[in-house]
């Protein structure tokens, strides 16, 4: 009794401040800050209200209505994700009335959802399944009703997408919660997805809508991560990969990206950041892959190239403009090609690490093993869906064949392992094949925002014959902020840099550049939030915590390396000498250079 009295007195005194309100949820009265929603307030009290359409309390559509609560004195039930707390509210979150209506609403949500759970790619990881478990699903009218006798009036606007793009929309499974629209329009700011039509015809339109060609999609794939049902998927290359592996006449090369090394473990129920690199190589070798190369090597090479280009541009040898913008991320390249045509000359002339390595690996293998280039298959394992589009770009083909033949995401690799019956965790470790096997620390941290800047600055110091500074000056660009400005002293000059992650923030930085609000020398742009660690080919959990755990794992490995600077990687210099003669040679230019075009659609 006594503590109750005390709390009561406390509340009375506290209510006088305008920033706090007193509410009662399920009989427990508390004081919460004013301006928050009921859903957030319930979270304070450890009461979980089921919800689908809201994510991280940022978007409040109130569309799924599963979060309804009963408010005393109100006839209807209110969506708690949209209703703000007011003083004196008495709320019931799980009363009989609420449970009954919530159950019915879940039934309604699932009435248009195709029950294909066994074959669905989301099986077990599906958020809808979880909610069904929480609320209790009775299947009143889903299965035993013929589908849509009303359908004569429902226009068939939503076609299943089979275009050249990576992302596939399956309208049968869509519950129209609007999460993908929110992340595309508000956070990534690409605005490629929208609602079309109204009432029963309401559908979600992707780039392949037949009436209007509004294909603005950059294939960043963030919508895949937030989709609660399996409505959005990407095209899988798994069958082709199997074909390539099974063909004994082909030489198969696998490129493993640094971020995949530490995030593939999540597919096998390990905590984020578990290093499984050695096991992956052993598993691939077991499958019959001839070579497994490290993509961090390409990162080192690419750091050197960026540094060389930046050096050229700074010393006015080149007519090209400053700042230099990185071309590593395909989504950013597409963004600039679509919306910032003025900045195309600022893009680095060199290809992304994946393409560089694929090209070099093919040449090296064919040269040293006397294999026809046509018989070499390059498969890369990346945490990204946009790389699939990049691999299919016209300028990344030689003689009509893709340099990177197939691109696998983490999920596809995990499926490959399961289909092959390999228990990844219990395998012995092995190392990458020569010569693309060594990398510096910088090459590893490419996956997190700020990694490219570190590598490039270090390489720039090497080019200008500056001493190796071992200090913690790069920690300030390895934070989890979205846009980071900084400057580094190289020789006598000061180099100002900025890095942004997430397409929305990239857009912000680019518009600033276009309008001349900021003056920079070097800009690193990565399309996914937090860099490649937030990539869409990884596990569905892409929260801030998961991303920071991945970043920590990358940095841990980075610092553990004995070679810190990309320029200290002797193999890079060897390969350049052997295959390209010199970085600035004509041969190097023809192999390494990328091309960009203005484009409206993709």
């Amino acid at each position, binding site marked *: 009794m006594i503590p109750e009295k005390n709390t009561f007195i406390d509340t009375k005194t506290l209510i006088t401040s305008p920033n706090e309100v007193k509410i009662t949820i399920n009989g427990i009265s508390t004081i919460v800050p004013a301006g928050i929603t009921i859903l957030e307030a319930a979270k304070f009290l450890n009461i979980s209200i089921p919800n689908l359409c809201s994510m991280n309390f940022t978007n409040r559509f109130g569309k799924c209505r599963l979060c309804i609560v009963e408010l005393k004195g109100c006839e*209807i039930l209110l969506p708690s994700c949209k209703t703000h707390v007011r003083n004196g509210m008495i709320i019931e979150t799980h009363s009989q009335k609420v449970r009954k209506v919530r159950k019915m*609403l879940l039934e309604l*949500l699932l009435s248009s959802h195709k029950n294909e759970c066994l074959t669905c790619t989301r099986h077990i990881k599906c958020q809808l399944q979880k909610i069904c478990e929480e609320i209790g699903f009775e299947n009143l009218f889903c299965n035993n009703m013929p589908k849509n006798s009303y359908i004569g009036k429902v226009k068939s606007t939503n076609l299943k997408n089979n275009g050249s793009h990576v992302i596939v929309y399956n309208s049968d499974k869509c519950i*129209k919660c609007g999460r993908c629209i929110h992340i595309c329009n508000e956070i990534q700011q690409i605005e*490629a997805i929208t609602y079309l*039509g109204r009432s029963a015809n309401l559908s979600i339109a992707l780039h392949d809508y037949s009436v*209007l060609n509004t294909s603005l999609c950059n294939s960043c794939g963030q919508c895949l991560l937030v989709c609660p049902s399996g409505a959005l998927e990407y095209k899988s290359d798994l069958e082709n990969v199997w074909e390539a592996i099974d063909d004994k006449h082909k030489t198969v090369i696998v490129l493993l990206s640094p971020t995949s090394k530490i995030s593939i473990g999540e597919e096998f129920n390990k905590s984020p950041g578990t290093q499984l690199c050695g096991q992956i190589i052993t598993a691939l070798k077991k499958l019959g892959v001839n070579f497994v190369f490290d993509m961090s090597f390409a990162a080192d090479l690419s750091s050197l190239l960026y540094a060389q280009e930046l050096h050229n541009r700074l010393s006015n040898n080149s007519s090209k403009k400053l700042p230099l913008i990185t071309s590593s991320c395909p989504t950013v390249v597409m963004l600039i090609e679509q919306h910032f045509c003025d900045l195309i000359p600022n893009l680095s002339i060199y290809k992304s690490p994946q393409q560089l390595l694929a090209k070099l690996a093919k040449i090296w293998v064919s040269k040293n093993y006397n294999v026809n280039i046509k018989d070499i298959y390059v498969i890369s394992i990346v945490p990204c869906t946009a790389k699939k589009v990049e691999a299919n770009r016209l300028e990344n083909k030689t003689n009509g064949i893709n340099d990177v033949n197939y691109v696998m995401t983490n999920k596809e690799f995990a499926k490959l392992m399961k289909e092959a019956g390999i228990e990844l965790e219990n395998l012995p470790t092995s190392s990458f094949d020569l010569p693309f096997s060594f990398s510096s620390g910088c090459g590893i941290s490419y996956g997190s925002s700020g990694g490219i800047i570190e590598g490039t600055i270090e390489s720039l110091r090497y080019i200008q014959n500056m001493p190796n500074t071992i200090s913690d000056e790069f920690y300030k660009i390895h934070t989890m902020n979205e846009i980071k400005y900084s400057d580094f002293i190289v020789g006598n000059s000061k180099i100002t840099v900025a890095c942004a992650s997430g397409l929305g923030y990239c857009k912000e930085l680019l518009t600033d550049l276009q309008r001349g609000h900021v003056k920079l020398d070097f800009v690193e742009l990565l399309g996914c939030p937090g860099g490649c660690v937030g990539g869409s080919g990884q596990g569905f959990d892409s929260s801030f915590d998961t991303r920071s755990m991945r970043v920590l794992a990358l940095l841990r490995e980075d610092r553990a390396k004995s070679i810190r600077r990309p320029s200290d990687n002797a193999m890079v210099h060897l390969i350049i000498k052997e295959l390209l003669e010199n970085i600035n040679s004509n041969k190097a230019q023809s192999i390494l250079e990328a091309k960009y075009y203005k484009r409206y659609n993709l």
Partner: protein
Amino acid sequence: MLDKNTKVKELINNFNINTSSLYELFIDIQEIYGYISDPILTIISEKLNIHKTKLLSITSSYPNLNLLVKPANNIQICSKLLCNNDSVYSNLIENMDLKTKEVSLTENSNIAFCFACPTVLIANKLAFYSFSSSECSTNVLKMNNHFDDIRQLIEHFIQKTKIKTINSELINIVTNFTNTQEFIHCLKNKFNSKSIYKLLYENIKNSINNKMSNNLGLNNFLSSLNFFDNNSIQNRSIVLIAVDFEPFSFINLYLVYKYTDFIILFLVFLSELFKFNRIVILIRNDFKFLIDLLNYKIISFQNNSISSNYLSGISFEIKRIPNLIIFEDRSAIANFLNNKRIQVHNTADARKLCTTNANFVLNEHFLYDVYDINGHYTCFINIVDLFKLASLLKNIISIDTTSILSVEQPCFITNYLKETPQYEIIFSYTKSNNPITFYECNKFNNDFVTIPFSNSIFIFNNITTNKSTKDCEFPIYSENTEQKLDSILKNLLLSCNNIIVTKANLCPVKFTYKFACYLLDQSCGNCVHCREGLLVLCNLLSNIPILRRRHDQNQTKNYFFKEGFASDSKLEIIENLLETIILSSTCYVGYTAGKFLLSIFRCFYKDFEDHYVRHQCSKKVCKI
């Protein structure tokens, strides 16, 4: 093509974000091209700095805007509830050669105001409307002379009133004006004499006396105008109220849009004639967009708020009317007026009403009174009535409409019904805390109750009883016209203050299905309970064995039972579903849809039982 392009360019260039409307722009462009094309959307998005995908979602949410090229001769048939448009459909196909590619036939549930007669739009112009399908087929071939334009309207007005002296000047104005505002301005300048207004007023008054004598709201409005005519009061104002404006009776934005010209004209004419100092609009929160329409057709598009309003993707902003009072619900309006009301003058009828009904429903009481608000003597008119008056204004000027009933004059339906015995009137009431009383029982005619077709509420005297299925009360009449009312009660449909005119022997289950389909079309589709709930309901209602038998004649009887349809549990599900829709709605569309359907369901529970449990149709409409 070049002319068209320059026209569109002009339209877009003159378009101002602050003062004009996107919807208006789209409609104008569509009138030029016939559809809204991809390049036009790009141009507009660049001009307004709105992303194209947002524009796309807005255009696609309006049924009247086409994103695809449609044949020039597009015929739309109203697919509303009660009228059998199947026969209209087949008649049209028989009579006209519709198989050619130039003509397309589509169904559209958003055409007409009324619930009773089939309507057809040809090339976006109201073509014909009639009760019986045989008339339709003949009339569609005769269709001519429709006055959708103010220009034509005024020309006919001149011809009819024979004002020859000002004829030439008027025609000059009429032929040269480009928008309503300008036109009104010109009219005001040129004609200081009230001759035009007076004539118009007389015409309206006569026609109301002749044809719309049953409409209480209009009569009282006119009587309060009389009050202003007789007294010399300084401050006068007119108040528009939008209280009983059920969303599904006006959501057809296209027609409202078309009417606003007339309403503005009418308001101008009223203010000229009676020297109203101001026009106040009292509305509920839900009806804000109506004000915008009246406000010289302004629908503004706010950049960042794609809200979950029931017109998806659009939010409205109030612009020009200064004296705007917005209330949250009816009782707030009633309270506001009750404090301000003074008994000034009344016609005898209205006075009777005021005094005899102790339990009058507050919200319609102010229809026929003059109030003193802040020193202004104010008369009231319901916006629904205003729409009717405006339509009347249109019809006075147009030529004879004796042979064909007009959709715009729902009031005539009752008159028409007297001559055609296959129709009956079904009326309704709400269950509220106040006992509902029926008024004007003397006016029962031989077979029909002459109830004005309006959703302003009518009070019926002396009826209070409790004969019910489930929760709803049936009104029972106690005096001498009891028997006649009984016959009406058999076909009673309950709703939220709506009166529905329908055919006799209408199967309520079929009606519910059609109405659910209609409501589904009105839903914006953002929330689950409205979109999926009504869709599931449509499925449940249409999959009754008896109804399905018509399509599956070869199937044996066992088929239906095996499928598991139409059992007791289905009835439970329907009821739960409707309750869910009501409880989880936060907007007006979902809420009223649920309430309406639930009241029908509970009232006709026996019929539903017949269908779902015993597999028979008591009205024998659903044939086996």
